[in-house]
């Protein structure tokens, strides 16, 4: 009788990588929906464009590397990267911006480092930084929230603007109202005005802010927070990194705010502005580029939170998640080396 042999354990709980990625994508949907609601259809097109680019890039590079294409595509990791790039670029950014960014993320940052599990840097964030440095104008021209914009492009109009590929002409066409439908993000406005000597209370009276935090951004962040909590509930991520990010950011912001409220915004503003919630739950938690031990992950998150606060408050860029995540990625191997959990029977053995 021929018996089938295998090594133990013979039992496993099927929660596969592809399932995990798929669920993370689903958890990001509320945030994406709110973003579309506030900033128009552009974001949806950007996400779809990024996903298409990601799948094509991944297939091509897997073929070049003579690896199975189907299994790489079916793990859904490329789609997640694409989603993050799609929601990070300005909604009406020219199509080539997204295509370049996504292709760079998949081909260079992920596959050339050895594919899933081997990349040193978060692909989406590396791509974002490349775009931000190479195309600063396009990358900082965010659209005005629908609620305060005089005019917002509709579905097909958005598509036409994206495919036209020139930001300038678009801006000319729609230059009306406060400052057309493109404007600086609240964080950008904040840092520009602060540098001009305004105080926080005055700045917050601007139309970009609805009293406390940026118009529209509050709800986007809230939606991503909801998605993040959903992921925690579904055990797709662990709490350590997110808690580290939000904890460090809150503490730093609180200290600054209490010390000099005129020039430092409240922790609430920090937590619900820009990419905070998206970054804390969907970007920083990428396991491949994070530390692996629980303690290490808390520290990893705290490094991101601290860097975000420092760059936002004192750096040259309005938002800082991409830079903070990349810098923290660099520390991950070191954290893994120095921060190991105490193994059973070692050290405090019999207390």
């Amino acid at each position, binding site marked *: 009788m021929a018996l089938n042999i295998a090594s*133990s354990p013979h*039992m496993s709980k099927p*929660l596969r*990588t592809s399932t995990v990625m798929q669920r993370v994508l689903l958890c990001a949907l509320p945030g994406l929906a709110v973003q579309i609601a506030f900033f128009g259809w552009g974001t949806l097109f950007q996400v779809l464009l990024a996903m298409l680019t990601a799948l094509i890039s991944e297939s091509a590079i897997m073929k070049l590397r003579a690896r199975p294409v189907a299994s790489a595509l079916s793990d859904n990791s490329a789609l997640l990267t694409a989603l993050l790039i799609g929601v990070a670029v300005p909604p009406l950014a020219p199509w080539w911006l997204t295509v370049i960014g996504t292709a760079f993320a998949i081909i260079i940052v992920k596959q050339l480092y050895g594919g899933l*599990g081997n990349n040193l840097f978060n692909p989406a964030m590396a791509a974002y930084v490349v775009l931000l440095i190479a195309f600063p104008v396009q990358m900082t021209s965010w659209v005005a929230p629908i609620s305060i914009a005089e005019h917002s492009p509709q579905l097909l109009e958005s598509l036409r603007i994206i495919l036209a590929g020139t930001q300038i002409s678009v801006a000319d066409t729609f230059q009306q109202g406060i400052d057309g439908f493109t404007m600086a993000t609240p964080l950008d406005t904040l840092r520009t005005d602060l540098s001009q000597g305004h105080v926080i209370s005055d700045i917050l009276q601007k139309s970009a802010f609805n009293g406390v935090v940026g118009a529209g951004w509050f709800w986007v962040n809230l939606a991503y927070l909801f998605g993040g909590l959903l992921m925690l509930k579904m055990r797709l991520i662990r709490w350590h990194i997110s808690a580290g990010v939000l904890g460090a950011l809150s503490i730093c912001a609180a200290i600054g705010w209490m010390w000099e409220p005129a020039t430092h915004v409240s922790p609430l503003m920090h937590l619900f502005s820009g990419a905070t919630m998206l970054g804390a739950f969907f970007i920083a938690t990428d396991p491949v580029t994070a530390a692996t031990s629980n303690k290490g992950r808390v520290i990893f998150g705290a490094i991101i939170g601290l860097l975000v606060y420092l760059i936002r408050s004192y750096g040259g860029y309005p938002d800082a998640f991409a830079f903070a995540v990349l810098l923290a990625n660099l520390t991950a191997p070191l954290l893994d080396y120095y921060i190991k*959990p105490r193994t059973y*029977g070692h050290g405090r053995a019999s207390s």
Partner: protein
Amino acid sequence: MNLIDIIEQNTLWPLTGGIHPAEMKHLSNQTTIARLPLAKTFYIPLPQVGDSALLVVKVGDRVLKGQPLTKSAGAMYLAAHAPTSGLITAITPHASNHPSALPELTCIIEADGKDESVPYHSAAAQELSKEELIARIREAGIAGMGGAMFPSHIKLRPAAKIELLIINGVECEPYISSDDRLMREHAANIVAGIEIIQQLIGARRIVIAIEDNKAEAAAAMTSAIAQSAALKPIALVRVIPTKYPSGGEKQLIQIITGKEVPSGSIPAQLGIVVHNVGTAYAIRDAVVEGKPLIERVVTVTGGNIEQNGNYWLPIGTPVSHVLQQLKLRKDKQAQVIVGGPMMGYALPDANVPVLKGTNCLLIPKRNELTHASAERACIRCGECAQVCPASLLPQQLYWHAKAEEYDKANAFNLQDCIECGCCAFVCPSEIPLVKYYRVAKAAIRKDRAEKVQAEQAKIRFEARIARLEQEKQEREAKAKEAAERRKAAMNNDDKDAVAAALARVQAKKQAQATTAPSNDAIAAAVARAKAKKQQAISATDTATDDKKSQVAAAIARAKAKKAQASASDTSAASASTLDTPAQDSKQAQIAAAVARAKAKKAAQTAPAQNNEVADKLATDGVEQINSTNDKAARVAAAVARAKAKKTAATESSVESAEAPSTDQKAQVAAPDDKAARVAAAVARAKAKKAAQTDEQAASETTLTEAPATQEKADEKQAKIAAAIAKAKAKKAVLSGSDDAEQTEAMSKQADDNSESSSVSAADAKKARIAAAVAKAKAKKAAEQDNQENQS
């Protein structure tokens, strides 16, 4: 905090990590433990035979149920018994119940179906001493029935004081329910077994740990404890949360006490001992009923079996028999797992026996446990680290194990991995992590074994080198000693010979002196001078010889002492070695005596000097030959000078009276003088020639022709005599020309002698000495003549 306080506190500590796999125990725990028809053939593995057990049966023997097959030959002995009555058809290697199924020595019993048993001797446990209890447990072949199969009689005699006894009824693996059913149905017997264990180890507290998914078992155990007078005050049933792997020994200790067993040590160091409920049951059977461990409860379950349940299976029952009886479903991809789905191993062959540690046979349907799928890349999600009960970082271990960086894997405490399989269970990339760790562990084990072997080889090699070196030194010492003995013997012979020769020469000289009275005085003077000289030399020689002999004696004494010391070191050895120091010291004394004797003799026989020179030549080598020759020549010159002085003194007294006549004589003597010089030159040349030939010969002859030296010495003396004669002749020339012919004749004679001597090396020396003497004499005479002429 001590263990008792901890137990009193009634708290449970959480298990680090762990998982909640589907339990699947309901498949098998619904029915009472049943029995199957006996198999036709039984396979009793005897892996200990030849190591710590001896075979007491042979092929063809009829054995009864419960009859021992082996007897003890070592501490780790685990008895094996016949599970039923039948005939031993073979004792041969047979496939083992092991993942490898590698054959091991197995006693194959053909059952006769009668199931006749040997009589069991029951006893009351309370009346037995500890030794008797241990003996009964040992003879019954009780082993840890949780799977480890460690001989229980060893674990029941812990070296350390045991505070806490934990009875493990956790059974955390999915599917398995053998302990569950045993506790439900035989709680009283298990408690009786626990009482015996307690009688042996005397723990202060007993905790029976049962998972909360076995409420019935816990209830049965609680009531059984309540009925035991001995255990009621100190034992309690502790129901712990269901979580895999709570049943691991280290994990259970952590849950019950909050303490961790230090890495690389055993629970007894913490004052804790853990026994399985099945083991307690078997101990009671062994002690109270005298029944050896020949059957156990085995859960047979899984989707490919129609009658899931627990069965009393005799140890040695082939797995294939069980599958056949329980109606294995047809499946080309059939899998038989021994143990649970988490830590059990798949059998490559079903024709292997049930063992004492076999608690479950799991025969799953295809895709019942997991869907076979390909391993994917690790995404470092860290889920494995979350569930690891040992708090390891499995993804790092995997990384290093895969890269074969075993030292780094070790740095991440790979050796503390208990292979529970939690990490692989949760891995989203379905990486068979435990397999990687097993491979890495095996490689590390192999590496360590090789290192140990290399270390031993190095020690062996170094010991061999040391031994060879010692042997070499001993050989050299022996050779040296032999050489010294030979030399000593040679010296004695030489001296005797020289002494004899000298005596003969003296006699000859006297004879010559009678024929040539005119030379008498000179000859006497020469002899005297020589004697003086030799005395002077011998005085120093004696001194040095004395010293030498003393040194030799001291060395001999030291050697004797050393020999004695070494002998006392090895005094435990045979008697013959005890004799050696005595012999050695005797030898040393003899050597010392010999040395002293030599010294004395040397002092007595001064002419030995020449021999010593020869010895020196022999030992010091060719380079020194010239210098020693020079020395000899100088000695000879000194001798000559002494002689010359003396002659001068005598002549001046005699010839001063004839002063006027000597003027004329001096003129006449001039040509004679020339003749004398010519003779001297001839002698010199001959001496030189002899010296040239002797350079190599000197050493050879003195070393190899020791017996012949007696004869040669005679020749030597003769030549010396000849040389002296020649010198005398010259003297005669000086004193007057009347004896010219005679002188010529004598010098001729001397030449002849010299010629004959040139064959022998040692003779040449003599010739040279003689020549030198002659030369010196001639010179002296010439000077005197000149002085006389001037005056």
